[in-house]
C-alpha cells in the first residue's frame, strides 16, 4: 500500500505545481525590472524587486480608471441582479399565482439558449435607446438572469410553509414576510448568487468589448486586451496588469469559497 500513497501524493503535488505555476510566474515577472523576462533561460525570480510597472500602469496607462469602472459595474450588477432575481425566485418557489408552473417550465426551457444569440439585436436595441457606451448598457444583461432565478427558487423551496403561515396569521403583509422571514433564511444563496454575478461581471469580456466603445469606459479585461495588443514586448508591465485584474476576484473567491462551491454544485448537479 505504501507506494500507492506516495504515488497519489506525488500526483497531487505535480497537479498543484501546474495549477499554481502560471499564477506565481505572473506575480514574479510583474516585479522584475523592464526587459528581464525576455531572456533565455527565462528567469523565475526577479533579480531586483521593483514596483515600477504598477506605478506606470496607474500613472500613464489609466489603470485606476479601468479598475474603478470594473468595480462600479460589478457592484451595480450584483445589486441589480439580486434585486430582480431574489424576490422572483422566492415567489416561484413559495407563492401561488396563475400560470406559475407554465412560466417556470418556459424559463427552464430557455436555459438551453446561449445568450450570445441575442447579442446583436440587443446591441441595436440599446443603440436605439442611446445606451451604447454607458454603464446602463453594460449592466442590462445582468438584469435578466434565468439561472439566478432558478438558483434562488431551488433554495427557497426548502423554506417551511408553516413559517410563512405563522407570519401571515400574525398579520404580516407579504412584503414584511419577505423582508423579515424570507430574506434572512435566503442569506447563504444571496451571498452565493451575489458572488457569481460579481465575478461574472468582473471577468466578462465579449459584452463590455462590444458595448463600451470609449476607452474611458473600458473595464479591466477590455483594457488589458487592448493594452496587450499595443505593448506585446512589455512582458513585465502586462504581468502587472494581469495581477491587478486577477487579484481582486481571486481574493474574493478565496474568502467566500464555501458559498461559491456549494452554490455551484447545487446549480449543476441537481439541475
Amino acid at each position, binding site marked *: 500500500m505504501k507506494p500507492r500513497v506516495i504515488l497519489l501524493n506525488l500526483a497531487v503535488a505535480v497537479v498543484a505545481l501546474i495549477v499554481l505555476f*502560471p499564477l506565481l510566474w505572473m506575480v514574479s515577472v510583474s516585479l522584475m525590472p523592464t526587459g528581464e523576462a525576455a531572456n533565455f533561460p527565462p528567469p523565475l525570480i526577479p533579480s531586483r524587486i521593483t514596483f515600477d510597472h504598477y506605478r506606470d500602469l496607474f500613472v500613464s496607462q489609466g489603470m485606476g480608471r479601468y479598475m474603478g469602472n470594473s468595480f462600479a459595474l460589478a457592484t451595480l450588477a450584483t445589486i441589480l441582479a439580486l434585486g430582480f432575481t431574489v424576490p422572483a425566485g422566492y415567489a416561484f418557489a413559495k407563492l401561488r*399565482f396563475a400560470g406559475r408552473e407554465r412560466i417556470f417550465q418556459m424559463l427552464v426551457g430557455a436555459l438551453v439558449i*446561449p445568450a450570445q444569440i*441575442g447579442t446583436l439585436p440587443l446591441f441595436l436595441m440599446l443603440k436605439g435607446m442611446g445606451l451604447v457606451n454607458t454603464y446602463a448598457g453594460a449592466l442590462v444583461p445582468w438584469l*435578466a438572469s434565468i439561472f439566478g432565478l432558478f438558483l434562488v427558487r431551488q433554495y427557497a423551496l426548502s423554506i417551511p410553509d408553516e413559517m410563512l403561515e405563522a407570519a401571515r396569521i400574525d398579520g404580516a403583509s407579504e412584503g414584511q414576510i419577505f423582508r423579515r422571514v424570507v430574506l434572512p433564511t435566503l442569506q447563504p444563496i444571496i451571498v452565493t448568487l451575489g458572488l457569481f454575478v460579481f465575478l461574472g461581471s468582473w471577468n466578462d469580456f465579449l459584452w463590455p468589448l462590444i458595448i463600451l466603445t470609449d476607452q474611458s469606459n473600458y473595464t479591466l479585461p477590455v483594457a*488589458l486586451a487592448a493594452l496587450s495588443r499595443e505593448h506585446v514586448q512589455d*512582458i513585465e508591465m502586462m504581468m502587472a496588469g494581469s495581477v491587478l485584474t486577477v487579484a481582486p476576484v481571486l481574493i474574493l473567491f478565496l474568502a467566500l*469559497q464555501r458559498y461559491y462551491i456549494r452554490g455551484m*454544485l447545487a446549480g449543476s448537479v441537481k439541475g
Partner: protein
Amino acid sequence: MTDAPAAAAAAAAFAKPARRHGMGRRERAAWGFVAPALIAIAIFFVIPVVSALLLSLTDFDIYALADLDNLRFVGLRNYEQLLSNPLFWGAMKNTLWFSVLGVPLSIAASLAAAVILNARVVKWRPIWRVMFFAPYVTTLVATAVVWRYLLHTRYGVINWALQSVGLPAVDWLGQPETSIPAILMFVVWKIFGYNMLIFLAVLQTVPDDLYEAARIDGAGPWKQFRHVTLPAIAPTLLLVSIISVAGFFQLFAEPYVMTQGGPAQSTVTVLYFMYEEGFKWWNLGSASAVAFILFLCIFAVTMVQLWAARRMGAET
C-alpha cells in the same frame, strides 16, 4: 423594487382566471415579486433572441445602421452566402477541432484530478480542492495574456522545459498545426477544476463498501475504476459533456487575446467570426445568421448526446 402598476398590468395580461375570481392579496404580492424579473427577461433576453432570427433574414449592414430605409428582407440569402464562404467553413472546422480535442481532454483532466483527490490517503484534500478550482474564477483575458508569454517561442517557460529534457522548441502560437493545441493547454488549465468539483461531489456518494468488495474480489485500481467508479459517474459524465460541448462551441476571448484568430486563420472560432462579421464589418444580418447556426449546432449536439445516452441506457 416592486412596481405596483406594472405588476397589476402584468397580472391582468397573464392571469385571466385570477381576474375572474378576483385576485387575492397574496397573488397580487406574488406578481409584484416576479414581474420585474419577467419583464427584464422579456425585454433583454426573449425579444433579442427572437429578433436575432428576424435580423438574420435581412441585409442589415452599415448602411442600414445609418438609415433604416436601407434595410431589406432577403430571406435565406445570408445563410446561403455563409454556406458558400470558405472563411465561415474554416471557423466551423476550427471550432469543431477545439471541441473534439478539448471536451475529452478537459473531462479526462477533471476526472483524473477528482479520482486522485478522492483518495483518503491524500493529505490536505480541502486545500487542494480549492486550489485546483481557483484558475476557473480568474479573469480569462488576464490569464490568457499570461499563457501567451508562457507559450512564447524564445522566452517561454514551456519551451524552456521542453528543451531542458532534450526536446526541440515549438512555435506554439505561430504555426497553424500547434495553435489549437496550445490554446487548449491554457483552456484545460483554466476550466478543469469546475468539472473536477462536480465529479468529486458524485464520487463522495459512492459507498466505500463497493471498493472494499471489489478489492476482496481481487480488482486492481484500474478494474475498480472501470467497474465501480465509472458506472457511478456515468450520468454525470453525460451532463458534464453536454455542458462542455456548449462551452467549447463558444470560445472567443482565448483566440482574441492569444492569437487574434491567427496564424493563417487557424484559431478563428464561430463566435470570433460572428464578432468580426458583426462589429468589425457591421454585417449584422449575416452575423445574426452565424449566431443562429451556432445555436442550432449546440442544440443538435446536445440532442444527439441525449439520444446516445438513452440508447446506451436501454442496452445495459
